[in-house]
């Protein structure tokens, strides 16, 4: 903001004046002002403060003095450097493969008239809702020492399933949906007439693809790669369970902190993990999205002519079906595994895995659900509030709210976990070991989706609707409750569902924060892995799938009941209108 350049300086001045004016307008609305201040304070406390704490902790010694010793030690230790390299390399490979698969799915679904598109769409989105550990479990079930394929089918004994290859397979299957969603959005929004124009000028399909479709979707491809890269970097549950010797940063951090209780070294490693994730996130948000060629005109374009050429359609379709088959095989294996007496020896049907699992971790399952629901509802509402106070106004501090409120989204869970441990285990804020800290983590980490969908919705609502409410005497709080919130129903719902799913499937963010009193199901499952009780873990994971499906349905029902527009008029009024008809 310290531009010496003349025109830029005056531009900043203008922005400042406008901001000053609107800030003044807002200061006259007490409800609004208090809300904004409260949001800023909460964001400082639960987003900025913990992150600052991690940085500070990594850069100080035991006496609290500034020191680079930890950083130097990490950077000069070959073991840690190798870990960094492995993490980035894995992210890179997974990003490329996932984006390729995502692109093929997106292209097949948006451009060809291949059959079973609905099925393919489900396959390409479902893994986003999937609980953690599920794919690691099935790769162990299928290819491990007792593997269904390795041992029972091929007769290989003692196959080592742990390592980079398994990790790549599992991560690709987990994260290609992220790339698919980004790419199908981009491919759909490319105006059909642009491609038709290329075709009309004599280009064949192949040529059209490489000269028009591909370049236009390039921002989507890069965006998909970056998003998958972030996911791979952040991932804790897969590398921790099937990575074997291929340790990644998030696992290393966990081992340092739980193994040697070295919070300082852990903090430095966490920062090393945070940086590439942050860079990728910012690149995607501010660079790739600006490069996008896609323009939304609001003008209905003519229907796209789907590719019917068998030479294009069927190879794409078969590729997608193979991926789909693998996805189904993996998920099916886990469900199957949860009903089996002893994997690898005795495949007899049993419910005992469930009995044992519940006996072992019934309370943690309950905790996960209760805290998940609480945090989802709070996060959903808080997200709507933030969307409301940022979507259509400018004032001092708005930029801070916008950035800070989505920051935790980009922060790897492991880093988040450490930062909360560091920030809230000593006075003045002692929260570790409580349920409160878990709820807070979930709220601030999962809120960005609610904010984003809320903002999009609000931007589509005509300003005058809210002005109408204001001029009729309503203050901003009343307008929000009666006007904006009901219209935000869908955004609210998607925010809640996302928050809930993420809360009960979270692993890395909560692994340092759970306590014997407040344990969560994911950390219990992780313990089962350590004890090699895979079938019990499978039972848990299957239950989680069921719970997720039930709760999504339940949320949907509640939201529709509570917020649906009701055409009711007061009893007295009705009688009168009926009479005068």
């Amino acid at each position: 903001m310290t531009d010496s350049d003349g025109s830029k300086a005056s531009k900043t001045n203008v922005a400042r004046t406008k901001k000053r004016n609107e800030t003044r307008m807002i200061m006259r609305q007490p409800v609004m002002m208090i809300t904004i201040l409260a949001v800023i304070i909460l964001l400082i406390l639960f987003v900025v403060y913990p992150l600052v704490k991690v940085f500070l902790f990594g850069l100080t010694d035991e006496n609290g003095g500034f020191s680079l010793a930890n950083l130097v030690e990490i950077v000069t230790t070959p073991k840690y450097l190798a870990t960094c390299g492995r993490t980035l390399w894995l992210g890179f490979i997974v990003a490329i493969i996932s984006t390729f698969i995502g692109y093929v799915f997106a292209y097949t679904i948006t451009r060809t008239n291949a059959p079973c598109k609905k099925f393919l769409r489900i396959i390409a989105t479902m893994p986003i809702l999937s609980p953690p550990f599920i794919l690691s479990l099935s790769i162990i079930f299928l290819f491990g020492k007792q593997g269904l394929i390795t041992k029972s089918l091929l007769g290989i004994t003692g196959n080592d399933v742990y390592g980079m290859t398994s990790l790549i397979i599992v991560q690709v299957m987990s994260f290609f949906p992220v790339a698919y969603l980004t790419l199908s959005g981009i491919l759909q929004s490319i105006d059909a007439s642009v491609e038709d124009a290329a075709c009309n000028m004599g280009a064949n399909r192949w040529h059209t693809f490489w000269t028009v479709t591909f370049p236009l979707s390039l921002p989507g491809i890069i965006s998909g790669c970056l998003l998958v890269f972030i996911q791979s970097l952040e991932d804790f549950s897969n590398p921790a369970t099937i990575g074997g010797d291929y340790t990644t940063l998030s696992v290393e951090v966990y081992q340092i902190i739980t193994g040697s209780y070295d919070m300082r070294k852990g903090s430095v490693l966490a920062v090393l993990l945070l940086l590439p994730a942050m860079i990728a996130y910012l690149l995607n948000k501010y660079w790739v999205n600006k490069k996008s060629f896609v323009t939304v005109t609001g003008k209905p374009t003519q229907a796209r002519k789907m590719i019917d050429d068998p030479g294009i359609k069927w190879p794409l379709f078969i590729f997608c079906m193979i991926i789909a088959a693998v996805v189904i095989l993996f998920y099916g294996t886990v469900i199957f595994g949860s009903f089996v007496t002893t994997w690898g020896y005795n495949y007899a049907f049993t419910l005992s895995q469930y009995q044992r699992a519940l006996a072992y971790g019934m309370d943690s399952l309950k905790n996960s659900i209760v805290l998940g629901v609480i945090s989802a509802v709070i996060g959903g509402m808080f997200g709507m509030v933030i969307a409301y106070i940022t979507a259509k106004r400018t004032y001092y501090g708005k930029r801070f709210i916008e950035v800070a409120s989505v920051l935790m989204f980009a922060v790897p869970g492991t880093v988040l976990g450490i930062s909360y441990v560091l920030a809230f285990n000593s006075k003045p804020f002692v929260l570790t070991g409580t349920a409160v800290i878990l709820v807070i983590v979930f709220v601030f980490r999962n809120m960005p989706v609610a904010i984003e969908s809320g903002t999009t919705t609000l931007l589509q609502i005509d300003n005058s609707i809210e002005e109408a409410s204001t001029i009729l005497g309503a203050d901003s709080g009343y307008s929000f409750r009666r006007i904006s919130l009901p219209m935000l129903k869908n955004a609210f719902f998607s925010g809640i569902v996302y928050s809930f799913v993420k809360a009960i499937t979270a692993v890395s963010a909560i692994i340092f924060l759970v306590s014997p009193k407040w344990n969560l199901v994911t950390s219990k499952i992780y313990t089962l892995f350590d004890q090699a009780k895979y079938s019990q873990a499978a039972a848990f994971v299957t239950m989680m799938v069921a719970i997720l499906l039930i709760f999504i349905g339940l949320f949907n029902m509640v939201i529709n009941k509570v917020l649906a527009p009701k055409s009711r008029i007061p009893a007295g009024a009705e009688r009168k209108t009926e009479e005068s008809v």
Partner: protein
Amino acid sequence: MSTEKTSAETLGRKSSDVILKDVTKIFQQPDTGKEFTAVNHINLKINDGEMVTLLGPSGCGKTTTLRMISGFEYPTSGEVLIGDRDVAKVPPNKRGISMVFQSYALFPHMNIWENIAYGLRVQKLPLDEIIKKTNAVIDMMQLTGMGKRFPNQLSGGQQQRVALARAVVIEPSVLLFDEPLSNLDAKLRESMRDELRALQKRLGITSLYVTHDQSEAMAISDRVVIMKDGNIMQVGNPSEIYAFPNSRFVANFIGKANFLDGTFIGMDGTTAQVKIYDQTFDIPSPGKMDGVKEGGACCLAVRPEGILLSAMDGRLQGRVRRATYYGAKIEYEIMLHEQPILVEVYTSQQNKVFSEGENVFLSLVSNSVRVLA
């Protein structure tokens, strides 16, 4: 009729006047950073119960003025008085006024009844009072029986009525209209316009109406305010403005006008003498003649219906370039020397019809000619 009267009486009358004192609004353009004066030191008084229209081309500052009265914009300087209270810095929801929006801005998730009752619910009135007032307005606006419908189930005219009902039910001291009829088709616009005016008169609410449609402004208002580039050009009742425009801009903006350039010779009593095309014309009521100097340039502003055509006699001679038949009237474009002159002839069935290329004589109806700078 009797029910309408009682409905109107159910609503109390809390109307008050509005005064703008030296109000200025300066915006800064977000891209260039230049200051832009949207409203430039304007003074205006809207009397209690009066309907005043702000009229002008887009960008003239009429909407900004309205928004400063509504409170959605605060003036850079100056006072906005509603009644005796300076509300320049009072937020919109504390002003006790109401507004009808261009897009109606009905709440899509509420039924008609709740839309209309919204402002009353905000005031937390007792339910029986809310019911009484809401139902009264519903009856008055002929929306009876539609309470349970949603806005998207109504026609454009009905939506308009709901917007109006919602605005008047809270008994505002001032009612603002932001081009409320521009979304309706031409026929409906006229009938809604009359309905709106009738309602405003009956309730006697001080009203400010913004439009860029001059015929709408003429038909609906007690007084019209013509604005241009943030300034008020002229204020007056519709017939004053039409008959005595004080500038070429106003003459041209309200209705059509021909401007015949000439020289102002001087006054003979109240009659002005103007020379055009080497002939001297006596103008018995020349208007205020702001900025016209003796011996200096001036022009005669003549409405298209203020010129008579004849095949034989008249002081100016021209040739018909275009004749357009409209049924009730014929519109001629006549070349007078090098200048095209617009002439409208009504009762076309009794007068001679000239065809294109014919020579005609023009005479000015001297009482309807004004002298402008």
